[in-house]
């Protein structure tokens, strides 16, 4: 549908003879948005690219000195930064895998005649609409070792979730899975309901087993939409900041966004944090590129 409508820009068209020409209207409608995004998104990035080659500290009045690629070199040789990336990778894998299993599983269950299906689906979608910061806050109450309902419900005694270095990242991931499985479920449901019914009927006539039906019919047809969900959640989990920052302050949960925030706004290493921001940015843009390709692929169907 992307190329669906193209009104001619012929200056002799009836509209062009009255009021503003189509070309002027088009420019008037599009250019302010592009300019706004350039001024408030691209210009700042150019600004920070400049700072990434300096030793600037926003907390001092000392002028910025040009240091060339030193910031980048220092960052890429810093084992602690790599540790932050490793933590982020672990978090992405645990939380996205969990979301796909819970979300897709729930979608499979919901994809049949179930009374009150619409209401149940809407209720299930509620978590993903809430503020991550506030969700993080109230999960602190749930995770509390002495009076939290999680330990009480599962009979875990006074198990430490958030102040336990080995457990904290999983606790953050569990909260993220609670919030975002519904997103995977929503997209999976769309994919599942689009699978033509006659394929299942044909498989039933051929006496195909449930595994065969799932792997040869369901999964291949749902895969493109599921991929969108996976790539989008991967990108969001990679950028994650709010949940981990609010839930814990363990070094084992210091994902790359938190490191970046601390470097920029607590240690005030402005120049170096700009360089780290660029490294993160390039990674995010790479994932965005893949994501948009998939979006367009699904759109064309």
């Amino acid at each position, binding site marked *: 549908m992307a190329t669906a*409508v*193209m*009104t001619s820009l012929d200056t002799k068209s009836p*509209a062009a003879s*009255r*009021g*503003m020409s189509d070309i002027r*209207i*088009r420019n*008037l409608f*599009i250019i*302010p*948005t*592009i300019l*706004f*995004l350039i001024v*408030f*998104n691209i210009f700042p990035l150019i*600004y*920070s690219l400049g700072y990434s080659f300096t030793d600037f500290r926003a907390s001092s009045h000392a002028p910025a000195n040009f240091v060339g690629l030193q910031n980048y070199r220092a960052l890429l040789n810093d084992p602690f930064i790599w540790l932050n990336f490793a933590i982020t990778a672990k978090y992405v894998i645990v939380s996205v895998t969990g979301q796909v299993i819970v979300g897709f599983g*729930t979608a499979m*269950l*919901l994809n049949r005649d179930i009374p009150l299906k*619409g209401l149940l689906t*809407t*209720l*299930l*979608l*509620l978590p993903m609409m*809430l*503020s*991550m*910061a*506030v969700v993080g806050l*109230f999960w602190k*109450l*749930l995770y509390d070792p*002495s*009076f939290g*309902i999680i330990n009480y419900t599962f009979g875990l005694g006074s198990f430490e979730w958030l102040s336990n270095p080995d457990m904290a990242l999983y606790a953050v991931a569990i909260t993220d899975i*609670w919030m975002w499985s519904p997103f995977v479920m*929503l*997209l999976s*449901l769309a994919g599942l309901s689009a699978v033509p*019914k006659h394929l299942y009927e044909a498989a039933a006539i051929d006496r195909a087993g449930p595994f065969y039906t799932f792997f040869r019919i369901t999964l291949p047809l749902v895969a493109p*939409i599921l991929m969108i969900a996976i790539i989008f959640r991967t990108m969001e989990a990679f950028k994650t*900041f*709010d949940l981990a920052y609010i839930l814990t302050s363990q070094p084992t949960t210091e994902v790359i*966004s938190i490191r*970046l*925030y601390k470097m920029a706004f607590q240690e005030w290493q402005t120049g170096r944090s*700009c360089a780290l921001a660029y490294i993160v*940015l390039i990674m*995010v*843009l790479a994932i*965005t590129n893949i994501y*948009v390709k998939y*979006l*367009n692929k*699904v759109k064309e169907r």
Partner: protein
Amino acid sequence: MAAVQTRSERALNRVAIAAVLVITLIFLAPIYWITSTAFKPRNLATTIPPTVLFEPEISPFVKLFTKRSQLREAPTPEEYAAAPWWERMVFDGGEKIVRSGRGEVQLSGYPNRFMNSLIVAITSTVLAVGMGTFTAYGFSRFKVKGEADLLFFILSTRMLPPVVVAIPMFLMYRAVGLNDTHWGLIILYTAFNLSFSVWLMKGFIDEIPKEYEEAALVDGYTRMQAFFKIVIPEAATGIAATAVFCFITAWNEYAFALIMTNRRAQTAPPFIPSQVGSGLPDWTVIAAGTFLFLLPVAIFTFLLRNHLLRGMSFGAIRK
């Protein structure tokens, strides 16, 4: 289909229904818990075993909105009798409401942060949806050179990690005095939502047959008139859905608000967690603040239920 169900299929269906119900309950439990905590007396909020049945009260909300101090000595019977009912609740909890010299009740930080959230979210939503609708129409109806690249550029601005953008924006805002102002946040949220608004609105406008406008043009409308009198009313549902999505995003946003504001323009998301502080927090008050903050989003989610898929996929998947 239903008629040919075998016995085993029906049994399977029943298991699935039971499983869905259990999953829904598990997903709603945290939300139920924070809601119920918001209506608990303080001494029941952190009991072991957890208190499930209790007489709900609204003292957490009274406490949420007022500044209080610990009572050194119990209020005199006259003082207690003269106090309005909501003030007595605070007395009962061992605290008193702080009053100014002229006897006015002092408000806590919460109502002010809530208002800031409203101002910032509503203004940025109007701007993002307004500009987004124009731009979406431009992309939908006219030939634009490099359209795919421009649309990718627009979407990619949405994907930027907030902390990455916040570093240079913080320096720029500091230079022009936009730190800790409503406009500072409004601009950031508008930029963040604009790309989303363009993508979603383009989908909605693509669905309006262009013949409608062409007929109007033939009838003597100018292109502008056709846009305002034909396209905008036709796109009303889409505009409303887009606006609700933008509002929720701005309402929920945390990282920019944390970095760019600290007092005057601070919104609720960075404020509510900061109440936990050190020592023993009063979880009923925090829960009350959380409940009021989440309530609008929960209502909007119900209103949006038929558009969630579309919004969450940037308009790529329609139903």
